[in-house]
């Protein structure tokens, strides 16, 4: 089983100039607010193209389960989309041997007006299953999802939990030779997530080739023998999971932005959640306290500080800046208290900056990512879910005077 499944040679994808201009202007507005150059390590080349992925070369053998890790915007999803043929590369090439199926979201193509039964066949066909294959696995899919009683109800009447379970159940019964999966395990309640992870485990151990993008490093450790680490659109490292994930984690903590010894600025050392189950997992829609810690070799007199929170697509969901801060030498802490952080479940990244007047002391992409793991209150269909997971009450009825 050492035959090559995927061989990528210099694979790259660039985005057209101007394609993200609105995003850029929005970002620029924020920059001027904080007077902080928020720009990431620029991926723009001399002609102004934005490269989402560049020069990725690697080989994956049949039967390997490979994790793909990296920060938000590192090119993980782009890599998957290229291999899944959803989008075409701008340069380089890849050879893929065998039947490929990709899973970038659960429930692709689900139609709210159709019943659970009809949607299983529709979604299965879109995912590339033959009708006979779906029919054969139908009972298994339904019992995996636990929606036997509602098979002939339109899915628009399903609870979000049921909807997601059914959608994942179809996907979980795909049996391709090569499976490409993007962060789709962050769906459903914890019990169902465990079930999905178990299923993934089976798939990976069943001799299939799996490429698995995830922020859940523990899941990657458990499921994948090898790991690809992407950083800023480039392939940083490819090797046994233990080594690569450890190196990746180390890089998150000791960011290479560390400056030379003669200009030892302040540096952020970590972030944590104050009152949640885990230090980096937010599981409540109630009060959320976030601490950022930094060390400074000399006192800060006229400090400025900016912060943004980005989602998996690197979109800023929130940003803020402040000036006129004073800090003593040594270890300091910036604490944010939110009465609620009602974001839809997923991985988010903090970005914080610290300035002494106009001189940047540190810019840090808070690592690890913040995982939001609250119950989904919004519409569970991706395109209608929006960014927020707002707690709300809905009261229909006649108007009372």
């Amino acid at each position, binding site marked *: 089983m050492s035959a090559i499944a995927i061989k990528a040679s210099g694979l790259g994808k660039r985005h057209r100039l101007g394609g993200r201009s609105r995003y850029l202007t929005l970002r620029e507005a924020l920059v001027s607010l904080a007077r902080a150059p928020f720009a990431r390590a620029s991926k723009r080349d001399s002609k102004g193209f934005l490269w989402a992925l560049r020069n990725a070369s690697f080989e994956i053998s049949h039967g390997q389960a490979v994790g793909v890790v990296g920060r938000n915007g590192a090119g993980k999803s782009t890599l998957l989309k290229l291999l899944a043929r959803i989008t075409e590369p701008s340069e380089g090439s890849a050879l893929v*041997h*065998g039947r490929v199926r990709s899973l970038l979201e659960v429930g*692709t193509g689900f139609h709210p007006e159709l019943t659970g039964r009809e949607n299983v066949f529709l979604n299965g066909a879109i995912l590339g299953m033959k009708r006979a294959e779906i029919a054969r696995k139908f009972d298994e899919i339904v019992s995996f999802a636990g929606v036997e009683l509602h098979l002939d109800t339109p899915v628009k009447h399903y609870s979000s939990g049921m909807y997601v379970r059914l959608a994942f159940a179809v996907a979980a019964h795909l049996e391709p030779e090569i499976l490409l999966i993007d962060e789709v395990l962050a769906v459903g309640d914890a019990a169902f997530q465990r079930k999905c992870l178990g299923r993934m485990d*089976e798939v990976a151990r*069943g001799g299939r080739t799996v490429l698995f993008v995830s922020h859940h490093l523990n899941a990657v450790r458990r499921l994948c023998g090898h790991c690809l680490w992407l950083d800023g659109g480039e392939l940083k490292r490819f090797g046994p999971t233990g080594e690569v994930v450890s190196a990746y984690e180390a890089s998150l903590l000791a960011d290479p932005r560390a400056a030379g010894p003669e200009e030892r600025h302040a540096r952020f050392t970590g972030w944590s959640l104050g009152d949640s189950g885990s230090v980096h997992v937010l599981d409540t829609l109630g009060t959320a306290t976030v601490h950022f810690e930094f060390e400074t070799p000399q006192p800060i007199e006229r400090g400025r500080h900016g912060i943004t929170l980005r989602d998996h697509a690197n979109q800023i969901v929130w940003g803020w800046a402040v000036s006129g801060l004073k800090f003593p030498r040594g270890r300091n802490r910036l604490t944010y208290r939110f009465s609620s952080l009602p974001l839809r479940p997923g991985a988010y990244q903090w970005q914080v900056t610290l300035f002494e007047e106009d001189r940047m002391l540190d810019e840090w992409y808070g690592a690890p990512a913040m995982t939001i793991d609250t119950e989904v209150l919004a519409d569970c269909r991706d395109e209608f879910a929006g960014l927020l997971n707002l707690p709300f009450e809905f009261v229909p009825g006649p108007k009372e005077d």
Partner: protein
Amino acid sequence: MTEPVQSAPEGKVIFIRPRSGWVRVDLRELWEYRELLWVLASRDIRVRYKQTLLGVAWAVLQPTAAAAAFTLFFGHFAQIPSDGAPYALFAFAALVPWTYFAQALSGSAGSLVEHRAVITKIYFPRLLLPLAPLLAGLLDFALAMALLFMALLAHGRVPQMGMLALPAFLGLTVMTALGTGLWLAALSALYRDFRHVVPFLLQLWLFASPIAYPASIVPERWRLLYGLNPMVGAIEGFRWALLGTTAPRGELLAASALTALLLLLTGAAAFRRLERTFVDVV
């Protein structure tokens, strides 16, 4: 639960690389995906009639109501000639294929934008999306045709040999709808403005086709130019086959068929060429 993978991969190799210029239509791949085409078409049909009061009755209601209005205003009040056939049948025989054409065309044209959530998440031949509405529309078309046949029989008109040519005229209609649909689908994925073009285009096209009037009222010297509208050949053909009106002239049919073929070939080429950029822009 998981079946073991058959030892050797099925020997299928996909080569992923940047393509440029024109790309041919991969008919073999389309054939491999025929089940998905079928599923998409049957979904279109199911969804159209879910939670509707009249259900499939809509399929016949639309051309029937239009024929009734045409008969009253154009046939009765405006006294538009109808090549010797009763005006109601004359209009109905044209409105049945026209309704199919209009629905198939707008379905095709909107298919990529409508399915943008799907095409950014999974791969399948994108051509299936504009093809599905053409297939789905055939059910409505068949129902309306059945009603039309009943109306013909009620008028004491027995089917003639000419009806054997109906599939050819339907083919002409399908080609025209698909060719135009491919162009508009590709363009509206890139520029949303083209969505507004569709209703407008269909309205103009209705006037430019012999639906409410016979092609014979177009002056002789303009007739061939008129025939460059492929729906002229198709509609005149339908009428001739169903009502036994004068047969459309050979060169008019040839002009229509040629335009339809040209539309289809250029539409497919444009679609394939623009296809690779959809995902990055929709």
